[in-house]
């Protein structure tokens, strides 16, 4: 099936009433969690995962992905109006977005960010269509050594890109990989690190870990504040329209942001966040008046807002075509598919076209829904912020508890949630990003399986394993990204000395 036939088929799936409804609920919840500081898209996806078990896999994927990209729209509203990022992908937006609000141009900033997100979302979907089917064709030839190289290279790159110290990122990776080995060994069926517990033999579930480090930890940070109220600037409908000059200045940043965002999404790492910083720096560099950035430049809103949406689309490519999630959010999507007995990867596009193409088409529809939801209704969503934070925080905790339990009706999952909640809180206080741990927990078992299969194949020769052209290229690229920048710094430092 070619991309156009596939897309037409996808629309016939995505336009089914149940899928339309799931898409609507997903983008609505996404917008709301995007608006609310504290609970981000990953926590919300994890919370709603159990409710998707009874759905068709395509419907589940459509709803959960809707939360992910919907949050990118919602997050900008809080950044622009309240000077607090609704989620991490909107941190950069507040630099110029809130300054525009102070100048009375909040409406224009909101409109440009919604339209920018829409354009980038649409460009991103075209990118998925072309890149995912191409990559899937290539990936059919991959064997265990290549998959091993991709997972290892992905984890190494992620440690480099997750921000903060690389040592901390490595500690998180080691922890995630170690957690991934708990439970029954998939090859010898031997129980490892279970200490006699039957429940631990199933392994450590990803979702309570994610709910803990992204949901509970955030709420504990909110709990520090106690009762707090937010001041919100109000926006009238007629103020929403940007001037002709503002449109003209936003057009190129949106176009650049869309492409930068999509490409960043392909690379392992916190793509949505990273892409906004790259886009902002790029816009500043090409601008004739870089010194004015931070004072309410619309380019500083248009570029990053397009970029974070482009990145959410780009991140779907490795997930859908290789079955490898490079971020916590896509790890949840993978989890949702696996629960339904689907293994994303090169064969999914041909074997389960209704899931792949239905999902791609639903992203077009979802982005259109978000544009409609976010422009006239932005004031309605922002009133969610008036909800008392302490009530919201407590309810989110309760939802995390019941959500974690309902995954497999296990008390162990509840304890995993609480322990990782406290651990995630400690990490936040130390400014350590937990994402490398989460991704390593997901990729770890895949890495072990492919490594052992590859060693069987090469009769234990590590050289044969890494010397195959594709795996060598991937590993060299990852090593260059990992060790290149410190080496360059070292050499430069020597020269200066």
């Amino acid at each position, binding site marked *: 099936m070619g991309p156009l036939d596939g897309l037409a088929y996808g629309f016939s799936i995505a336009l089914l009433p149940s899928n339309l409804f799931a898409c609507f609920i997903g983008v609505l919840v996404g917008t709301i969690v995007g608006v609310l500081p504290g609970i981000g898209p990953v926590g919300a996806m994890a919370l709603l995962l159990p409710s998707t078990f009874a759905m068709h896999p395509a419907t589940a994927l459509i709803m959960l992905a809707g939360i992910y990209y919907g949050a990118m729209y919602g997050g900008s509203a809080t950044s622009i109006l309240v000077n607090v990022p609704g989620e991490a992908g909107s941190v950069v937006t507040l630099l110029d977005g809130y300054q525009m609000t102070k100048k009375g141009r909040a409406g224009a900033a909101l409109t440009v960010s919604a339209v920018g997100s829409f354009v980038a979302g649409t460009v991103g979907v075209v990118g998925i269509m072309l890149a995912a089917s191409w990559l899937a064709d290539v990936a059919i030839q991959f064997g265990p050594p290549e998959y091993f190289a991709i997972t290892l290279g992905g984890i190494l790159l992620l440690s480099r890109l997750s921000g903060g110290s690389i040592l901390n990122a490595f500690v998180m990776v*080691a922890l995630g990989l*170690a957690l991934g080995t708990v439970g029954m060994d998939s090859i*010898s069926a031997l129980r*490892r690190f279970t200490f006699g517990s039957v429940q631990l033999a199933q392994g450590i579930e990803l979702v309570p870990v994610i709910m803990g480090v992204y949901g509970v930890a955030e709420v504990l940070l909110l709990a520090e504040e106690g009762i707090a109220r937010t001041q919100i600037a109000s926006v009238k409908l007629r103020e929403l329209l940007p001037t002709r000059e503002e449109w003209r200045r936003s057009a190129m940043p949106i176009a650049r942001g869309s492409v930068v965002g999509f490409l960043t999404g392909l690379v392992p790492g916190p793509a949505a966040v990273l892409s906004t910083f790259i886009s902002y720096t790029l816009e500043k560099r090409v601008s004739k008046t870089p010194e004015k950035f931070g004072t309410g430049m619309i380019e500083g809103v248009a570029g990053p807002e397009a970029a974070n949406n482009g990145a959410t689309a780009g991140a779907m490519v490795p997930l859908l075509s290789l079955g490898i999630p490079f971020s916590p959010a896509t790890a949840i999507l993978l989890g949702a598919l696996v629960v339904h007995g689907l293994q994303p990867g090169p064969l999914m596009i041909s074997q389960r076209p209704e899931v792949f193409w239905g999902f791609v088409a639903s992203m077009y529809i979802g982005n259109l829904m978000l544009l409609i939801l976010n422009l006239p209704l932005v004031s309605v969503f922002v009133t969610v912020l008036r909800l008392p934070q302490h*009530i919201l925080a407590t309810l989110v*905790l*309760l939802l995390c508890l*019941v959500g974690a339990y309902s995954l497999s009706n296990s008390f162990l999952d509840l304890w995993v949630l609480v322990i990782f909640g406290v651990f995630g809180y400690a990490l936040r206080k130390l400014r350590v990003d937990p994402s490398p741990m989460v991704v390593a927990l997901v990729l770890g078992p895949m890495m*072990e399986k492919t*490594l052992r299969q590859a060693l069987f194949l090469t009769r234990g020769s590590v050289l044969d394993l890494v010397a195959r052209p594709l795996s060598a290229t991937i590993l060299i690229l990852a090593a260059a990204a990992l060790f290149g920048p410190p080496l360059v710094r070292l050499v430069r430092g020597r020269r200066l000395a």
Partner: protein
Amino acid sequence: MLARAVPLVLLAAAGVYLAFALRLPFGAAARPGAGFYPVIIAVFAVIVALAATASAFRDVPRGEADAAELDGAARRRVVISVVALAAFCLALPWVGYPAAALAFVTVVLRYLGARWTTALLTGVLSAAGSYGLFAVLLDVPLPRGPW
């Protein structure tokens, strides 16, 4: 303190993990056993945890200031929330979901600064609402307790 405690705990955990990994059948490179990969991960974990601990004791940790900045009231709110979470997990099998949820929401809200009436009312509504949603609509077998 936190900045030094976390790497120390992780170092200890890495050591224990290595000890258990070494007891698993290692196999050989051509036929890796169940312990092959865990031993590699354990060695990596011990090395990075050692480096992180050394760096935490050598440098003035950036996070230290943040943790110290928490005033007594804020720290109490966090501790109460964590204790309430743990109490919920312990109590759930015995008292059932509705009672545990009611007590959890009421106590946490009260300690976060809400009035008793608000806390109790929110507790009743959220316990009933979440029970209705998960147990009745989504068929999750939430424990009901002795009543």
